[in-house]
């Protein structure tokens, strides 16, 4: 009896698995639906947030629009599938979203264990510290004995403990739940230091009454490479997402912007001509139209434009390029060539 039940169950699982691999063509699905569904966060300042009319904007959302511009020819045809940190991967794996652009750190366990495909890094983040300038501290090594505001149950908590113990320092944790709570505690002086990812520190700092009285210390104590993800098992779709990201990066490196993209079509540089679909048939090889990258840059812009528009130094967040500068400027942003 028991054996029979097991047999039926495993047959059912097998049947599910079979149908699961059968629906592979995400590209056809998206094109026939006419809308790209991106898994985005429920709100991370500068990366994904709704404006007063409910239109989603931000760094990650712009990359989602870039994907839509490449696949559908129109960056406006997106649908934001909002997900919390706990539900994001299930939403993607269950097919409720086509691609995940949701400031997600690439790790071994997520790549292998959760069975995702990652496609490169669109933002290099890392855990940092913010202090009041009046404390006169210039380095994280001076933080011995400080009280630190820290979000509970996150990797930042573990990183902090590791960093302090390996440097033989002590700290007093003030545990908090959200960014806003942290800001309140930090503002009222319940903690001397606030630690979280550098992008989060930037938004917290910009929301303080006097941002210039506070500084982010130079030490970055963890690696948080953020990037897009797709489901395993759809190689064409994975290639598309990979090269959408690479197209924005290459465009910046080659000096192609949304303003000059039409002129650049007449450029003599063969890589520019291949990128914009003047020569070659790279778009068709991806199953897209040949002007896919042209559409991305025309409608959304290159990597640098996306960065500056959403989180750059002229936005309220005021994040400098830092590690996210082009490799030619001493950063880590680097795309394989379009050849």
């Amino acid at each position, binding site marked *: 009896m028991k054996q029979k039940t097991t047999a039926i169950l495993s047959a059912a699982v097998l049947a*599910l698995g079979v*149908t*699961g691999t059968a*629906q592979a063509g995400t590209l056809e699905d998206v094109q026939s639906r006419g809308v790209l569904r991106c898994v985005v966060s*429920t*709100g*991370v*300042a*500068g990366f*994904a*947030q*709704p*404006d*007063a*009319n*409910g239109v989603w904007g931000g760094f990650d959302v712009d990359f989602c629009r870039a994907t839509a511009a490449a696949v559908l020819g129109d960056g406006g045809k997106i*649908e934001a*599938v*909002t*997900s*919390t940190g*706990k*539900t994001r991967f*299930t*939403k993607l794996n*269950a*097919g*409720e979203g086509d691609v995940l652009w949701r400031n997600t750190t690439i790790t071994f366990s997520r790549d292998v264990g959760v069975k995702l495909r990652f496609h490169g890094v669109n933002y290099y983040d890392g855990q940092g510290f913010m202090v009041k300038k009046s404390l006169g501290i210039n380095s994280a090594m001076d933080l011995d004995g400080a009280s630190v505001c820290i979000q509970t149950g996150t990797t930042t908590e573990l990183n902090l403990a590791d960093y302090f113990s390996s440097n033989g320092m002590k700290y007093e944790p003030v545990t908090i739940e959200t960014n*806003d709570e942290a*800001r*309140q505690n930090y503002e009222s002086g319940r903690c001397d230091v606030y630690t979280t990812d550098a992008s989060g520190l930037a*938004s917290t700092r*910009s*929301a*303080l*009454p*006097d941002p210039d009285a506070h500084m982010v210390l130079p030490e970055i104590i963890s690696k948080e490479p953020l990037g897009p993800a797709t489901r395993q098992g759809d190689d064409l779709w994975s290639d598309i997402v990979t090269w959408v990201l690479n197209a924005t990066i290459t465009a910046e490196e080659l000096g192609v912007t949304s303003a000059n993209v039409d002129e650049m079509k007449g450029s003599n540089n063969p890589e520019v001509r291949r990128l914009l679909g003047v020569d070659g048939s790279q778009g068709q090889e991806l199953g897209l139209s040949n002007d896919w990258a042209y559409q991305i840059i025309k409608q959304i812009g290159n990597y640098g434009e996306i960065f500056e528009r*959403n*989180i750059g130094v002229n*936005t*309220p*967040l005021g994040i400098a390029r830092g590690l996210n500068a082009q490799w030619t400027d001493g950063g880590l942003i680097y795309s394989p060539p379009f050849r």
Partner: protein
Amino acid sequence: MAQNQAKQAYSPGTHPDLPPPVRTTGVLGWVRKNLISSPLNIVLTLASIWLLWSIVPPALNWVLAEAVWSADTRKECWALMGAPRDGACWAFIRGSFKLFVYGWYPEPERWRVNLTFLLFAITIFGALRENIPGKKYWLMFATAFPFIAAWLLLGGFGLTPVGTQKLGGILLTLVVAVTGIAFSLPIGLALALGRRSKLPALRAVCVIFIEFIRGVPLITLLFVASTMLTYFLPPGSTFDLLMRVLIMVTLFASAYIAEVVRGGLQGLPSGQYEAADSLGLTYWKAHRLIILPQALKISIPGIVNTFIGSFKDSVLVLIIGMMDILGLGRARLNDPEWLGLAPELYIFISLFFFISCFGMARYSLSLEKKLQTGHKY
């Protein structure tokens, strides 16, 4: 002379009552009795006055006097007050107000939402008023309302279809809460009767259902709805997320309502059941005419308590990424132009929930008073 006359005018025991001493009546009497009746009370009164004095004026100052009602960014808002955070920046709430109410509901179709809100108000008014002509029709309309609302909001049959992912903000909160409340009462009632049924199979099913649902936190059920179900269903077949959540919220509230109603049924003296039997009434007639009207009356406070609970529980859907009023508000807090205005947002949301829940509580009180017949069991 006058005194003499007064003394003579009354025989002993017929003197009309004199007014009570001035110090024991009116404002003065109230103050003496309630505020300064003993040294301890004097101290407590002074402490309370000091506390109110140090809290209320600054709070009013922040909420009203220093508040800024129109600005385009937080920076502009803070520039308009003495110093940052001196006053509330209501401009943030005002600017996003439509989003908070309608969510992503398409602009040209919003009249449908307004109509739904209006019908909802009419339904509540009609169904809750006791002395209204044509009560029967009002109740029929109230029963039909959830279906009319679903048609208006989601479209189809002549209206442009609107996907459930377009619902957000207060609209989504009300959809989740009202659906849970409206459907949990009949389901809960059926479960309560089922649990007391003499048919063992039916009773077992009801007991298992109630105990299982009550033994699991709502959050868990929501996670099951949002993540597990998609694994159980065949891939590719999408079963609307909102639908899944509504079913879970309704089942959860039903289990609690069932136990509240069962409490009411058990609180009824057995004489009532025996009286119904002795009249030769069938099970259904006995319940409709004798048992349930009384049992439900006893259960009103518990039922309303459960309603208020499920209304507030509806915000838990934000954990699975749905944009109800709290989820949407928190998302808006991340607008780089408006960072750091959490107090304003949470005050606004608390006000919305307070008004809704306080309204329900007051209505239940008035209903209890109206149905009060003097029977105490």
